[in-house]
């Protein structure tokens, strides 16, 4: 029993990390029809910069702040310089964001060195609670809490604020939003920056979770995020949470019971969803 609870908590924590990464990806896709293959690059930049600041200052909060800031800045630069010149051209977008992914990944090695970096959570998040026989690792609970908080905040923004309404309207019909006098370019930029910041946040949280970071983990992790976006339905924010938790749980249980299949299972899940329900589980037929 306690094993299952531990696995569930692991799964939820991983799921939340993937959710943070996938949420930005799905909103960016829904709004701009850009599938950002460089999203994983923003993730590792968040991880490395966040860890660097955290280890330098000893404050996790500062580290998280640095990661988010890095995400915002890189998001702004990426949207302006890389994505904007190729809006509307799917093929160029796919190719160019993949190229950016490579560059971001290699730049990490130039700035922070090619080696892995080890990192541990701060003392107040280290260790675990014991409830009966069940071990609850503090840091994992922390990740779940942050994930939920982000979900609630973004849900609120999307539902209650004007900019949120505009984003949702933009996902449905971009032209009409423009014809109502709204500058969609600005909306694109803000959403892209927010998505990048979420990816970077996911990066720093993941860094402390796995204890070690390396440049290549961006692409590995973003494949998981892609799977989530596909399962949840491109552009569906709620769908991305649900699918992320699903994938996170599958990952945790598979890693324990049939470790060699864990990646393959998620891939298979994506393949099946794409073949039978390409619009994802959470979106109606377009």
């Amino acid at each position, binding site marked *: 029993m306690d094993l299952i609870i531990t696995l569930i908590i692991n799964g939820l924590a991983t799921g939340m990390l993937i959710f943070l990464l996938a949420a930005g990806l799905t909103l960016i896709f829904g709004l701009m029809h850009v599938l950002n293959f460089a999203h994983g690059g923003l993730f590792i930049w968040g991880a490395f910069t966040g860890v660097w600041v955290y280890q330098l200052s000893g404050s996790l909060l500062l580290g998280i702040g640095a990661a988010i800031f890095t995400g915002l800045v890189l998001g702004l630069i990426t949207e302006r310089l890389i994505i904007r010149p190729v809006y509307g051209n799917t093929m160029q977008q796919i190719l160019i964001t993949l190229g950016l992914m490579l560059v971001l990944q290699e730049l990490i090695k130039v700035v922070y060195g090619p080696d892995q970096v080890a990192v541990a959570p701060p003392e107040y998040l280290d260790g675990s609670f014991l409830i009966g026989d069940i071990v609850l690792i503090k840091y994992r609970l922390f990740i779940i809490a942050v994930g939920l908080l982000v979900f609630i905040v973004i849900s609120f923004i999307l539902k209650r604020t*004007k900019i949120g*309404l*505009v984003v*949702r*309207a933009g996902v*449905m*019909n971009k*032209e*009409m*939003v*423009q*014809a*109502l*006098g*709204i*500058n*969609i*370019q600005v909306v694109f930029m803000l959403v892209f920056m927010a998505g990048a910041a979420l990816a970077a946040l996911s990066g720093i949280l993941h860094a402390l979770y796995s204890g070690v970071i390396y440049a290549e983990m961006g692409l590995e992790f973003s494949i998981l995020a892609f799977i989530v976006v596909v399962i949840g339905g491109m552009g569906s924010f709620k769908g991305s949470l649900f699918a992320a938790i699903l994938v996170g749980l599958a990952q945790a249980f598979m890693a324990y019971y049939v470790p060699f299949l864990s990646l393959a299972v998620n891939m298979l899940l994506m393949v099946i969803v794409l073949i039978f329900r390409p619009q994802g589980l959470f979106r109606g037929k377009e």
Partner: protein
Amino acid sequence: MDSLLKLQEVEAFIEKYHILHEVSISVPKGGVTVLLGRNGAGKTTTLRTIMGLNQVNKGSVTFKGEEIRNLPPHHIAGKGIGYVPEDQGIFGELTVGENIRVAMKKENQETTKRMEWVLELFPDLKKFWKKPGGQLSGGQKQMLSIARAYLNENELLLIDEPSKGLAPIVVEKVTETIEQMKEEATILLVEQNFAMANKVGDQFYIIDDGQTVHSGRMEELQEDKAVMKKYLGIS
């Protein structure tokens, strides 16, 4: 006569296809100007081109004497042009209220006044305020779209085939609405339903194969059987 909107020899492409060859239209302030013509003649493209959703290759588009050709759509909308597209452009997953909120640029006395006026005109919108736009009936969607276009102190409304796909009784209702709206704003209307066009229109332009080929007062058109037959297929 001073015109609110003026298109001069406008040429436009969609991808590689030359859709508008030479469209010249002058919309005077007040009243309803109707664009007539067969399917595929370029009427919808003309509206989209005015709105900036299509590039203008040649010619000029002026609104209140100011050149607006190839401005981004949100600038054009900001100058006071409201757009009701052929498919109404309702945000299906947003409620009626949210659809209207997206459209409201600011919430001041003027817009509140306009909103009250609109809601009086379309009581259904008030009734279904919290209903998702996608679940409205065709007529209600049309009303919502027109209301949305009208909200922002817009002086000119571009309305694309409001009667399309609606039951005759609903068409009547929409016709009535447009007649009421024309007291408040200038309207450029694309319409296939000749009876409706004839009822609300003050002047008309006929577009054929991407060119404006004929224009005049609405009441003159009915007399001109030859033109009606040639361009509209009505005899």
